[in-house]
């Protein structure tokens, strides 16, 4: 693996829009990724293993619950800081960013937003410090884009709930200490339950042979008559809107994260194009390569503006689900296209693990699918502007 020479592009001087603290947070995350992620990540991805050794570092840079208030162990930062941290982590690897997104937006956020004070105090500080890791179980084998159809169920047994069912494609599941699981009660209403490792009948087999997010562990959650204590139900919100609220937060982070992956591909391709000579001159001097590079920086700049404005709206509590969908869809698609173009700029070298591009490209195939597929986000925009849902 080549040394990480990343220099962040900022074509429209967007740094001027950031506060001193935003930049401090971003630069700390950037330095940490250079030091702790870049040197090891290719090796872990090749071996399809999650780098456990970086959990403590992720916690140190505030990647776990950056916007959760300080009294629960979070950093109490704003949404733009959260976005910038995700951008920097995904600049390193989408799988590592996935771990951070899940912990922050899909585990800590629901406990914070829908949990009792007792649940917050019990779980959030350990999740913020990385002492405990969590996962989020929504998707099922037969219900992906249509989570409302889920069949995982729990029944009230007086002093506990009895949970049965299975979840698939769950990031972090193989090593998670706890899972925020979405399941229907006897009336068919969706609720969130905190299921803890060690509960009888709860297992988490790993999903192997992925070509994407290889440095992130993905697996199943299997509930075979699991007795869940009643105090583990999240009482604050129920119905499909509860898990979708978490997804809003995670998708927002992905809209920023994808910029990081795109920046890394662009930066690598630009450097390579200036150094690599063919026909007696740098390949960067050929119009076809310039077109690719020029379009990449244009698209990155547009994506940055989209994310920044969305961050302002989120800070003001005004960002809508549909606005978040637009940014997630646009930015991930932009990153995936840039990864494919950048890979070609590197010619044969582009397919090797010496450079990060092919890893980003493969990772982004998951990112464009999870947290709502590319198609589904388009339908969300369509429904929003026409008032007619085309889902069903």
């Amino acid at each position: 693996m080549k040394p990480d020479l990343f220099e962040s592009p900022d074509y429209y001087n967007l740094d001027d829009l950031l506060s001193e603290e935003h930049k401090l947070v971003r630069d700390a995350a950037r330095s940490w990724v250079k030091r702790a992620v870049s040197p090891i990540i290719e090796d872990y991805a090749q071996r399809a293993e999650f780098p456990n050794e970086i959990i403590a570092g992720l916690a140190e840079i505030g990647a776990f619950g950056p916007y959760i208030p300080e009294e629960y162990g979070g950093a109490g930062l704003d949404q733009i800081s959260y976005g910038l941290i995700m951008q920097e982590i995904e600049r390193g690897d989408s799988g590592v960013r996935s771990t951070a997104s899940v912990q922050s937006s899909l585990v800590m956020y629901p406990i914070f937003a829908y949990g009792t004070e007792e649940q917050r105090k019990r779980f959030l500080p350990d999740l913020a410090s990385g002492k405990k890791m969590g996962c989020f179980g929504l998707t099922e084998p037969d219900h992906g884009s249509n989570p409302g159809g889920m069949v995982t169920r729990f029944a009230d047994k007086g002093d506990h709930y009895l949970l049965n069912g299975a979840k698939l494609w769950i990031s972090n599941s193989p090593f998670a200490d706890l899972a925020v699981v979405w399941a229907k009660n006897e009336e068919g209403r969706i609720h969130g339950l905190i299921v803890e490792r060690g509960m009888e009948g709860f297992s988490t087999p790993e999903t192997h042979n992925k070509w994407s997010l290889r440095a992130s562990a993905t697996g199943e959650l299997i509930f075979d008559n699991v007795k869940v204590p009643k105090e583990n139900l999240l009482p604050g919100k129920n119905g499909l809107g509860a898990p979708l609220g978490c997804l809003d937060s995670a998708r927002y982070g992905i809209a920023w994260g994808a910029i990081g992956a795109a920046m890394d591909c662009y930066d690598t391709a630009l450097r390579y194009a200036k150094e690599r000579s063919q026909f007696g001159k740098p390949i960067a001097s050929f119009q076809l390569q310039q077109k690719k590079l020029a379009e990449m920086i244009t698209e990155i700049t547009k994506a940055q503006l989209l994310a920044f404005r969305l961050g302002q709206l989120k800070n003001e509590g005004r960002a809508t689900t549909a606005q978040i969908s637009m940014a997630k869809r646009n930015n991930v698609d932009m990153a995936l296209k840039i990864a494919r173009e950048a890979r070609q700029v590197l010619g044969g070298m582009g397919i090797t693990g010496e450079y990060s591009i092919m890893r980003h490209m493969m990772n982004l195939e998951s990112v464009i699918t999870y947290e709502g597929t590319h198609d589904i986000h388009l339908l969300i925009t369509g429904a929003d502007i026409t008032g007619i849902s085309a889902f069903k």
Partner: protein
Amino acid sequence: MKILVCISNVPDTTSKINFTADNTAFDTTGVQFVINPNDEFGLTRAMWLKEKQGATLHVATVGTAAVEPTMRKALAIGADEAIRINAEPTDGLFTARQLAEVVKNGGYDLVIAGRESIDYNGGMVPGMLAAMLDWNFVNTCIGLEIDGDKATAVREIDGGKETLETKLPLIIGGQKGLVEESDLRIPNMRGIMMARQKTLTVMDPVDMEPGTRDTQYEKPAPKGDVKLVDPGNLDQLIDLLHKEAKAI
């Protein structure tokens, strides 16, 4: 023990250097500023002293409000307080004079500066500061241990190392070796949060005229093409080295 680390705010080493106003001023457009690397080694060494031996750690800079992010980073890394003397550091003497005032009034035992700043590479500030204060001074320092009021410092010398014993109060001009690159601290979230509450005092400069003034900057001439000389034609090589490269 009370330690002051002097921090100079310099362009990141990857910055593109350009000049404006007819080559009389440095163009800061798009330039990222960072803690001078030599000072960053010193800051980390000071953090170790603070953590292992118990010390109060202040950082000081001479600069305008534009350098505050650098100071905030030093606070996030772990300095207890920051002082900014509100003036352009227009030359080494001016800078040293301002810092001397901070040291005199601050009751410090140890001042850690960098061997040189990587922007103007003057390498003068710590020496002048030591002279103004009449303190012991060790330059190009690559190792430092403090035991009570005794200090053991290691210096880099041509082809080797020199170990010195001296006493506090002491000023060092530090560099890599005080700590290694991998030891440099990245601010963590707790540090960034704590930095919000820490004091950053802004002081007016002592009135003085700078001794020198920059009148013109010039970039090195771009490198010419490589000339290949046939191994059998050593006379041509000597001729080129003598007349064109003016190296011999």
